[in-house]
């Protein structure tokens, strides 16, 4: 049971529910305890799409900038 309260139109919220877009491939991984969304880049590596961290300093780390490669499995 779930009630949405939003200014976004319903058709917008649920568009793409059935189709497979590029971002569907994103994978959520943890590196050094920090959550990030990555897209597969082959050879066990992932390309960072989005960093999810409450520590603002993490966003300054050069190796965690969007587009950088991180190992998917450590």
């Amino acid at each position, binding site marked *: *049971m*779930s*009630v*949405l*309260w*939003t*200014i*976004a139109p*319903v058709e917008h*919220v*649920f*568009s*793409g*529910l059935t189709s497979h*877009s590029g*971002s*569907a491939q*994103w994978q959520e991984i943890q590196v050094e305890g920090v*959550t990030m969304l990555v897209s597969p880049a082959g050879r066990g*590596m992932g390309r960072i799409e989005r960093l*999810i961290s*409450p*520590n*603002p*300093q993490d966003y*300054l*780390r*050069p*190796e965690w900038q969007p587009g*950088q*490669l*991180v*190992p998917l499995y*450590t």
Partner: protein
Amino acid sequence: MAEADKGWVMVRRRTKMASSDEQAASWRVAAEVQPDGAGDPQSTDVVKNVVALGETETIRADSNIYCLPIIGQIEGHMVLPPQNKTTKYEHVIPQLVAVEQNEKIEGLLIILNTVGGDVEAGLAIAEMIASLSKPKVSLVLGGGHSIGVPIAVSADYSFIAETASMTVHPIRLTGMVIGVPQSFEYLEKMQERVTRFVVRHSRISEQVFRELMLNTGEMARDIGTTVVGRDAVRYGLLDEVGGVGQAMAKLNELIEAYRQRKGSAGAGVARQGQSSGPVMSSGAPQPVTPAQSGGSGGGPVMPQ
């Protein structure tokens, strides 16, 4: 140089996961890369770090402030299609627990830019923030709509950027409800929960909030009001117009006060009077009612 930089990252990642054989190999890689970076003293330092320690922790600075961005749609029980930018309940709630539990963290900064989303997930986040014992400040940038409103007011002190807006409108049935057998009364109850929370945690009165919510004539497809920057402060919804500078200054001020209170009064007394709205609203203007703000056409028309 860019190539070489990429090299560092690869080297670093490899050393992290490598067995000792592979580690030795990657050190050789580092050694090979070194001549390229020789002109840049900083990058040669990095190479030395990699070679010596297998690690480059050159800029690891820990912050005593946790920053919680609430962006896009707020996702609850239902997983939204992947191209939506969402803030997920399961990401946010553990972070808030960590903020409460970790002794190094002294304050929480919540940055909102949301179109709304799941009511119960939003209320859960808002209640978690409101019940944290540490100082917290919220900042609405861009937009804090619908369920973003209770989250914005849940902090000790709330800021809104001058250009940011908040839409106050009713929770309604228009195709938004999935799998709920109860209809009108159920929505009424849900609305009541939100309204009560907002009224309890801000300076706005229930009557004004309802008037804003039921205003016809402002929105094309819905009833309600879009409150921009200064008006959010005038109505008493948020505390002050400002940006990240003011928000951080306020948070540091609250942290300082919190430290002193903890130091002098000891544990236990620190949370007196917590539910009585914003902690420091002394300098903020008195909220106006929509009727006072003038204008024609009935309902709250925006003052200049």
